[in-house]
């Protein structure tokens, strides 16, 4: 992937809780150790986070509870003020802007979906979805029209006059999603949006989410503690542990090259065939080789297995431009399916 200006750029973000946290980091720019923090009676919820989130990608931050992922996403919108570091949002220094500018930015450029929906109990579905426009002073007709469009987008037409407590969990989160999209945000934060839902509904909502992203192409920061959800949705994943980001990469990268045992622990039980694509299991083309069939480099092994296991032939892998960049054969696919160490893509 090329590197244009990222939508969101984080450098050296620290969030330290406790008395005197602010003065603690200031004197030296060095990285405090656990022992330093302990001695000062402080807790580092986020340690030295560095991220570049690209326009239009789904960036998932995955970590178990207490790993600092929720704190990190709140630093990105300054719901929590980072103790140190730099955040550029579309090239603008987010930490330097005034309270007023911040409100403007949140009103027009950011949307957020919450784990427990955070719907206002005293407002109807329509009122909730129109709320962000209401506080901006948009007149009633315009904001309700926009809200109705959003409600239709998430498939809740006909429920406009319902109140949150009259809806199921899944429906409530659809309202939360519609509401966060009503202002057409540039960046969309989702903080464990599906964690409070039943597994079946969760799956349905993930599909819905992917459908919406197919239509809208937002820049997304998605928080989850569920690794399966992460690999299902993510273009790229950052894994957090004890406040630090320990690895960032595409789902395939994490599976093939886990940076630490901790990452490997997550990836161990993941069905590789669902994650690995043809690009990751192909071998280089031998000059002069003749290939009758081709498939796209992003095809998942799971989806090409059927086709390739029943044939002796080699299949060419093509990139976006249609040129052949590699070859897959039965053996490489079988290795993935039976769980042998997959070949490294060099």
């Amino acid at each position, binding site marked *: 992937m090329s590197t244009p200006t990222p939508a969101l750029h984080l450098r050296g973000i620290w969030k330290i809780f406790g008395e005197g946290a602010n003065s603690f980091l200031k004197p030296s720019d060095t990285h405090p150790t656990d022992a330093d923090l302990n001695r000062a009676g402080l807790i580092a919820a986020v340690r030295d986070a560095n991220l570049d989130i690209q326009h239009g990608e789904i960036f998932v931050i995955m970590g178990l509870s207490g790993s600092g992922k929720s704190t990190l996403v*709140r630093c990105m*919108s300054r*719901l929590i003020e980072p103790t140190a570091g730099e955040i550029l949002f579309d090239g603008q220094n987010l930490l330097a802007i005034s309270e007023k500018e911040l*409100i*403007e*930015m*949140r*009103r*027009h450029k*950011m*949307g*957020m979906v*919450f*784990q*427990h*929906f*955070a719907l*206002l*109990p*005293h*407002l*109807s579905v329509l009122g909730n979805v129109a*709320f*962000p426009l*209401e*506080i*901006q002073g948009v007149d009633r007709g315009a904001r309700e029209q926009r809200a109705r469009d959003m409600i239709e987008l998430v498939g809740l037409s006909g429920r406009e*006059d*319902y*109140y949150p*407590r*009259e809806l199921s969990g899944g429906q409530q989160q659809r309202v939360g999603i519609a509401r966060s999209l009503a202002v057409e945000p540039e960046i969309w*934060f989702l903080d464990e949006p599906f964690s409070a839902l039943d597994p079946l509904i969760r799956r349905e909502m993930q599909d819905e989410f992917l459908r919406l992203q197919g239509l809208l192409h937002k820049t997304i920061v998605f928080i989850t503690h569920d690794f399966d959800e992460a690999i299902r949705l993510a273009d790229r994943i950052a894994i957090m542990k004890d406040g630090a980001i320990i690895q960032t990469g595409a789902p395939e990268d994490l599976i093939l090259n886990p940076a630490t045992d901790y990452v490997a622990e997550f990836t161990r039980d993941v069905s590789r065939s669902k994650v690995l694509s043809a690009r990751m299991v192909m071998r280089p083309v031998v000059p002069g080789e003749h290939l009758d069939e081709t498939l796209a480099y992003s095809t998942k092994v799971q989806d090409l297995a059927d086709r390739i296991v029943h044939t002796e032939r080699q299949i060419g892998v093509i990139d976006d431009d249609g040129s052949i960049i590699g070859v897959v054969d039965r053996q490489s696919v079988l290795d993935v399916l039976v769980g042998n160490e997959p070949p490294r893509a060099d």
Partner: protein
Amino acid sequence: MAARPGSPGPTQTPIWFWAIFAGLATLGIALLFSQDHAPYLSKYPRDWIIPLRFWISDAMYWLVKEFDLGLFTFKELTRSISWLLEWPLSIANNFLATGFTFSTEPGASVILPPAPWIAIVAIFGLLAFHLSGLRLAILVTGCFLYLAFFGQWHSAMITLSSIVIAVPLGVIIGFVLGITAYRHPLFEKWLTPILDLMQTVPVFAYLVPVLFLFGFGPVAAMIATMIYATPPMVRVTILSLRQVPEELLEYGNMAGCTRGQLLRKIQIPAARKSLMVGVNQVIMLSLNMVIIASMIGAGGLGFDVLSSLRRLAIGNGLEAGLAITLLAITLDRLSQAFTDRPQHSHSPQGRSVIGRYRLSLIVLVILSVSWFASRYFPALGVFPESLQITTSQFWDNLVKWINVNFFDQLEAIKTFVLINIMMPVKRFLLKTPWVIVVAVIGLIGYRLGHLRLAALGVALATFIAATGLWSKAMVTVYLCGVSVLFAAFIGVPIGILAAANSRINRITQVVIDTLQTLPSFVYLIPVVMLFRVGDFAAMLAVIAYSIAPAIRYTILGIQQVPVHLIEASSAMGCTRSQIRWRVQLPIALPQIMLGINQTIMMALSMLVITALVGTRDLGQEVYIALTKADTGRGIVAGIGVACIAIIADRFINQWSRKKKREFGLPV
């Protein structure tokens, strides 16, 4: 019992505690028999008394006479506050009770008569119907008809007009203070101890400075009412804003709310229900103040009760007291109905402008029609005297009859309890040397919560001694202690029964709900009827007033015992009484003790009121100060009561917390 790892100290009372206790007891007896050696240890010497009450009186005097705030004097400030409050109060009073004269001259003829009684009955009935339904409408209409038929209307409307002004003002002030405290932790830190003190100092005590600053009259009475009724609103506001889920606040911020928008559009609507609990509290406390406030000029029903009580006109007092109670029940149910209104749900019809203001329109129509009609049919405007009934004669006769026929029996009960229980306790407390009492408080405090608690207890007890209130305080402790013991002996078993039987539970709940809506003064009427004045009558009133929390917390404590423990005990073959005595009660005990604590607090506040029936405790001291407008004396005695309350409260709470922690129950 072995100490659990991590829990401080063993759970059993250590031997040193009993040793020191025995030492102090011996010392106490020794002091009793050898008062010549160190008399200052038995009785706090007169010369050592700090003249705090005179200092306070002087300070108040200086405040009113000399203090200058630069642009205006303090006196001008209090004057303008009264002037500001007098406006709405007199408008409400004119509207409900006396009619508008549109003239400042006394005796000017009424141009617009007060709202017709029939209109008020109709409007309240309608409001009840709108908020809840037919049942509440019948109750409310019935209560108001009582006021009309029993000749209480005029007084009731005077009382209602001060409630109508005091409650919204108290709610707004409490709300603003609460929000400020919520937003500024420093302000809260500063406010909390003041609120604590205000709720432990008996009401009478701050009647005195209010009287001193604002004079005698309805405005001063209303200010006292507001001071008394506002603190819970502050607390409820802080608490309910804190209870708003963090996510909702984060959402509000992410949606780009300004601070004002966040408050108006998110925090207040989300906290509405618990805020309404605060409003209800303000209403109930304001009504509780009605009689007390009449001591500094509130007029209305409170004045009727008070003067009947002074004249021992039992029948009249009872009818006026019942009127206050009915007013309290009405307003309580109405405000609860407002809180519990059916929650938002989708409804097919939209709300038109007329729909939204329908109720206000109907009220206006009722008022103007009845006003107009009452010109031609005066009976619609002012309830005709010929239709009024009274039962006061009946009550007076009944009391006479009881006293004629059962005098011996009642007297026997009273004498028995007085001689065998009350007097010995009183004598014991009064004879015990003050140093010993202070030392025992310190010892228990140290045992419960180490040095800090011990220091607090010793300091407060010494304060009481040093201000020269020791013996009066001991009378308070004795009356309070005996009453609370009786209340516990009656209340806890009722609670145990109610917790086991849902039918008894339902009945009990209704009874305690009613007990808690009764203004404290009302309890005095029946006891004075039967037992006349004195400690025994006071004790009965205190028991009746303060028993509710003992019952309530007992039920709660037993219901909170985890079900699996009951199941496990049944599985082990415990009989029902074994489960009750060996499982439920020990585990519920910390909770029950919190109930007893509440009972003590209520008993202390009631004791000040029972000074009216002739007790000689701190309450009497405050009461005397009130009649003499002696600010220092009243405040010091009030703080004395607060000291007793704080000692009891901190000690019991600490014990309960400790026990709960040992049991692994939520603290």
